[in-house]
C-alpha cells in the first residue's frame, strides 16, 4: 500500500479524531490529542495495525512539550505491512501523563516502560509501570530528556563519569 492510499484510508477512518496527518518521505504521521489517543488506537487496530514496532518519545524543551510516537504496523495484513504509521501525542513537559495503549497493543508494554524511565512519561492503566533498563536512581533523572547533558570531550581528561 502506497503512503498516499494509506493517507486516504486514514482520513476516511479517523475522521475528525486526528489533529493532523502528514506524509513526508514515505513516513505517515498522525498527530492526535492526548485524550483521543485510545479511540484512535482502537480504530487503527480495527483497520489492521496489529502491533507496535516502537514507542518513541522526543523532548522539545523550547516548545515545552514531549512528543510520544507509537510506530505501528501490521503482521496479519500483508498490504499494511509495507508502511509504518506514526501515532503521535504531544504532552506537556512538566507533567506528561497519557493513557497507556497496552490494552490495545500488548506489544507496547515494555517500550512504554522504557519511555517512562527515560522521559518520565506516566502511562495511566499500564499493568506494570516500573523502570526496565536503568537502576532506580538513574531512572529518576529522566536521562533522555534534553536537560540531562552528557559531557562530550574530544581529548580525554580525567574520569568524566559522575554526573551531577
Amino acid at each position, binding site marked *: 500500500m502506497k503512503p498516499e492510499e494509506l493517507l486516504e484510508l486514514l482520513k476516511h477512518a479517523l475522521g475528525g479524531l486526528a489533529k493532523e496527518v502528514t506524509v513526508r518521505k514515505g513516513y505517515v504521521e498522525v498527530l492526535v490529542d492526548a485524550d483521543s489517543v485510545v479511540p484512535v488506537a482502537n480504530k487503527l487496530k480495527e483497520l489492521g495495525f496489529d502491533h507496535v514496532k*516502537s514507542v518513541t518519545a*522526543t523532548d522539545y524543551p523550547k516548545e515545552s512539550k514531549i512528543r510520544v510516537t507509537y510506530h505501528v504496523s501490521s503482521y496479519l495484513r*500483508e498490504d499494511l505491512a509495507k508502511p509504518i504509521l506514526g501515532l503521535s501525542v504531544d504532552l506537556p513537559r512538566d507533567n506528561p501523563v497519557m493513557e497507556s495503549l497496552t490494552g490495545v497493543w500488548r506489544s507496547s508494554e515494555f517500550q512504554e516502560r522504557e519511555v517512562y524511565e527515560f522521559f518520565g512519561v506516566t502511562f495511566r492503566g499500564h499493568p506494570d509501570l516500573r523502570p526496565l*533498563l536503568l537502576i532506580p536512581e538513574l531512572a529518576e533523572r529522566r536521562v533522555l530528556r534534553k536537560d540531562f547533558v552528557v559531557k562530550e570531550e574530544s581529548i580525554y581528561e580525567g574520569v568524566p563519569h559522575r554526573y551531577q
Partner: protein
Amino acid sequence: MEGQKLQGMVVRRVEKELYEVFIGPQHPGSGHMRIIVRLDGDVIVEADPDIGYVHRTMEKLSEVREWLKPIPLLERMTIIDACNITVPYVNALEKLMDKSPPPRASYLRVLLCEINRVASHLYGFGIFGVFLGHSTMYMWAFGDREVFVELAEILTGARLTHSYPIPGGVRRDMPQDFPEMARRAVRYMRGRLEEYRRIFVDNPVIVKRLEGVGVISRNKAAELGIVGPNVRASGIRYDVRLAEPYEVYDELDFEIPVFEEGDALARTWVRVEEIKQSLSIIEQAVDWLERHKGEPIIPKEDYDKLPKLHREVYEKTGRVKLLPAHATMKIPAGKAIARGEMGRGEIIYYVESDGGTTPYRVRVVTPSARNAIVFKYIVPGHRLMDLPAIYGSIDYFPPEADR
C-alpha cells in the same frame, strides 16, 4: 529469614507455595540478563525478564556525537551482526540527505549483511546448543562461524566491528580474490549444514526437547509483536527484505522460509533455511560484483569533492578516504524512519534532525528488545528445563536488547 541480613541482598516474602529463582545475571543459562522465575513445583507460573544489564545508553550518546560517529557506536549493540545493524541507520541518513548509494556499494553492503547474517545465526546455534547441553553444537557452530568472520575481515579489515557502510557508499571495495574465497566458504557451509542436521536438528534428544515447546501461535505472535525468524516460524510471512526492500534486495532471488508450527523446533528450522538462503544471496552478490568490476562505490558528488591524493588511493586500492568535513557534515532537518532485517529480526531507526551536526534524536528498536516480551508471556506454563530451550530458540541477545 526476616531477621537475617546479608550484604547486598534483600529478603522479601513471595507467595506461599511458590519458589522464586533468579536466573542471572551471573548464571550460565542467562547471558547478561536476569529472569525472575516463580515456580510451582517444576512448572513456571510467572517469569519476569529483568533486562538492562548491558544498557550502554546508545540513544543518548548518539545525540551528542556527530552524524557519522554513531555508526561504530551502534554496531556495538550487536557486535556479531555489525553490518546489518548499521545499514538501516545509514539508510535513514540517506533518506534525510536525499542521497543514494551506487549499485556496487549496495551490493557490497548486501554481501556483508548476508555474511553477518550467517555468522549471527551460527552464533545463535552455538548458544542454543550449549543451552541444551550439546557442547559439540557450540563448538562446531563457533568454529564454522570463524569462516564467515574471516570473510568479513578480508572484506572490511575488522573481525567484528566493520563500520563498513557510510552515507552514500561503503568504506572499501572488495579484494581481488574475494569471490573465490566466498564461494569456497559457501560450498563448505552447505556441507556442514547437512552435518548439523544430523547431529543437532534431527537428533532425537534435541527434537524431543524442542517439539511443542514455547509455541507461539500466529495471532499471539502478532499481538506480542515479536520479530524475525520467531515470527516467521509462527506462520507470518514478514521480512523487511520483502516488505520494504532496502538496498538491492528486490533484485536478488531468494525465498523467505515460513513455518507454521510456531514451536522451538520450527524456529530452529527457520534459521537453518535462512542460512541456506543467505548462502545463495552471497553467491549472487559475488557474481554480480565480479561482472561489474570497477564501478564506483561512492556517489559522484562525493568523488568530485575528493582531493587528488585521495582519488589516487581510491582508484588504486579501493579504499575511500573521506575529508574531515565529512565528519562534521550537517544534515537537513526532518524525520526519517528506516528499517532493516537483521539476523534476529527487524530493526527500526527513527532519526530526527534539526539541521545540526548531531542527530536531535535517534531511536533504535532492536529485534531482541521486542522479543524480550516472550519471556513474560510465553514462558509461564512450561517447565524450568524448558526455559533454556525457549531462550535459545528465540535467539535473544542481551546487549542488543538493552542498547
